[in-house]
C-alpha cells in the first residue's frame, strides 16, 4: 500500500514538472515512456531540442535534497533509456538533431504545497 502511495506522489510530481515546463514553452511528446530497459518521466520538445526529463520529488528535507538523489548511476540509466528511445522510435525523432537530458527537482512542504522547484538543463 505504501509503495502505491509513493507511486501516486511521484505521478503528482511529474504532473507538476510537466506544467512547469509547458509554461516555459516546452511541448510534450510523451509522459512516462516505458520500454524493457526502464522508464523516462517526461519527453519534451524545446525549440529544436528533444529533451528527456528526469523528475525528482521529495517531501520535506529530512532525507536530503532531491538533487542528491540524481547521481552518476541514475544519469546513465536515463541515458540508456533515451538512447533506446532514439533507436526504437525513429519516426518520431527523425526531425531532431539535438538531444539533451534535463532534470526537475521538486521539494514539497509537509502539506503537499510546493516549497521549491528547480530546473537544470543539459546534465552530463
Amino acid at each position: 500500500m505504501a509503495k502505491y502511495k509513493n507511486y501516486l506522489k511521484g505521478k503528482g510530481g511529474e504532473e507538476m514538472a510537466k506544467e512547469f515546463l509547458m509554461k516555459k514553452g516546452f511541448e510534450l511528446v510523451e509522459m512516462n515512456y516505458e520500454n524493457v530497459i526502464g522508464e523516462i518521466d517526461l519527453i519534451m520538445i524545446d525549440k529544436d531540442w528533444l529533451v528527456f526529463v528526469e523528475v525528482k520529488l521529495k517531501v520535506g528535507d529530512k532525507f536530503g535534497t532531491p538533487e542528491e538523489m540524481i547521481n552518476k548511476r541514475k544519469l546513465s540509466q536515463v541515458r540508456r533509456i533515451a538512447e533506446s528511445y532514439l533507436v526504437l522510435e525513429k519516426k518520431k525523432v527523425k526531425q531532431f538533431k539535438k538531444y539533451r537530458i534535463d532534470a526537475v527537482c521538486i521539494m514539497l512542504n509537509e502539506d503537499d504545497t510546493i516549497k521549491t522547484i528547480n530546473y537544470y538543463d543539459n546534465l552530463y
Partner: protein
Amino acid sequence: MLTKILSMANIGLKTENVEVEVNVADKGFPGFGIVGLSGKAVEETKERVKTAIINSDIEFPTAKITVNLAPADVVKEGSAYDLPVAMGIIAAIGEVNLPKDKAYFYGELSLDGSLRHTKGVFLLALLAKEEGVKNIFVPRMSANEGSVIEGVNVYPVDNLTNLIRHLRGEKLIEALKSVNVEEILSDITPEFDFSEVLGQNQAKRALEIAAAGGHNIFMMGPPGSGKTMLARAMAGILPNLTEKESLEVTKIYSLTGNIPPGGSLVRQRPFRSPHHTTSQIGLIGGGSNPHPGEISLAHRGVLFLDEFPEFGRDSLEALRQPLEDGYVCVSRAAGSVTFPAQFMLVAAANPCPCGHLGDPKKECRCTGRQVLNYQKKLSGPIMDRIDLHLIVPAVDVNNLMIDKEKACGEKSMEIKKRINEARKIQSERFKKLGHIHSNSDMKNSHLKEFAKLSYEANLLLKQAVNKFALSARSYFRLIKVSRTIADLEKSEIIKEIHVAEALQYRVRNDN
C-alpha cells in the same frame, strides 16, 4: 568563483607544490568532483569536507563544485588535501578571504570540522623554507614537527571555525615559536641497562665498539645465551643523535607517519627489529607508490635482525647494496625513488638448527647436511660486509648464581659516555664532509687522510690479510674498526694493539 590554494604532494622524500583549484559554479547541476590523479583517500575527501563544512555552521553550496589538483600528472595520495579543498570552497562562496601572502594549507579533516594528526608536516615545513613561503597552516597535533624549521611561521589549527576566524581577523591564531633543536635532543634516559646482562664481557666490548663507530655486528651462539638481550640493551648505549642526523631521521619518520601526535623531532636513534617473516618490500622498501622499508626506518640507527638465517634468502641478499652504499634506490613503474639507509646491522643467529653446534656441554643433533643448509643462508658477500663477528657462548651457571651486586657489570650510562666521547672525536674529524658522521660511513678514499696507521700496525695488517686471505673490502673495513677502537682510547694514530683487537673480531673461526 574560482580560488587557488597551495598544498604539497610527495614522491618518496621528494616534495612538490600542488595547486588546489576550486571552482564553485553558479550554473549547472549540483555536484562535487575531484580531478587530478587522486588516490582513494583523496576521493573520500569529498565526504569529509562536505560534512565538516556543514558541521562548522557554514551552508554547503548547492552548486557544481569542481576541484583540480595541479599538476595533473603527479599522483596525490593521502588525506592531507582535506583542508585546502575545504578552505577553497569556503573562500569561493565568499565566507572568508584567503591570505594575501602565499601560504600552505595541509591537513586531514574530521567530520566535526576539527583537524587530525597528519603525516608529512615536517616535509611541508622544509618545502616552505625552500620555496620561500612564510606561512603554513597545519593541524595542531602535527604542528610541532614543523616548528623546528627556522624562518617558517607554523600556524597550529584546531578546527575550521578557528581558521575562519583567523582569516577574518576576528581571533588570530598565534604562530608557534620555533624550537631550539639542541634543547629537544638533550634529555634521554635509556630504557634497558647493560648491567642487567650477566657475563658476556667480550660481547659487551664488541657491541661498544660497534655502537661507537656504527659498525655492523654478527652474533652467533646457542639459544638462551643472551644474544637478543644484548642487542636490545644496545639501544641504551647508542650515541645521541646529532642535530643533522635527527633532521634526516625525522624526515623519514614524518613521511611514514611514525611521529606520534604532538611530537616534533626524533630524538632517539631508531632501533628496528623486524620479525623474520617480513617481506622483501617491507624490509627494503617499495610498493607501487614507493614507501620506505625497515632499512630506511633504521637510518642512523640500528637494524636488528634476530634469527638471521630464518629471513627469506631474497630479503637477505637484497641487503647487500644498501649495506655498502648507505642508500637504496627503489624503481617502480611510477618512477624511481631513493631512500637513505645508513644503518648499523646487528644480526643474531644460532650456529645450527638445533643450536648447539660447538657447545662444549650439549651435543649437536643436526646432520651435516642440515648444518650446511642452515649456514648457506649466511652467504659470503653478506658476511664480508659485517665488521665484527662474535661468538656468544652459553653462560656458565656459576656466573648466574653470583651475588647480583658483584656480577653487575658497567651501567649503560658509563658505556654511553665513552661512546659519546668517541663519536665527538669522529664528528670533529668529519666536520668538513657533510654526509659522513661516523667511521663506518667513511669511503675508502677517506682512509688515507683520516686513518693513519703506525708502522707496526701496518705490518700486522699486511700479515693478517695474507694469512687469512681477507678480501679488499675486509681490509678497508678492518681499518675502519681499528680507527674506532683507537678513538675509544683517544689515540690519534692507529696502533698495533688496535688492529689486533679488530682482527680478533674479523676472523671467523671457520676459516
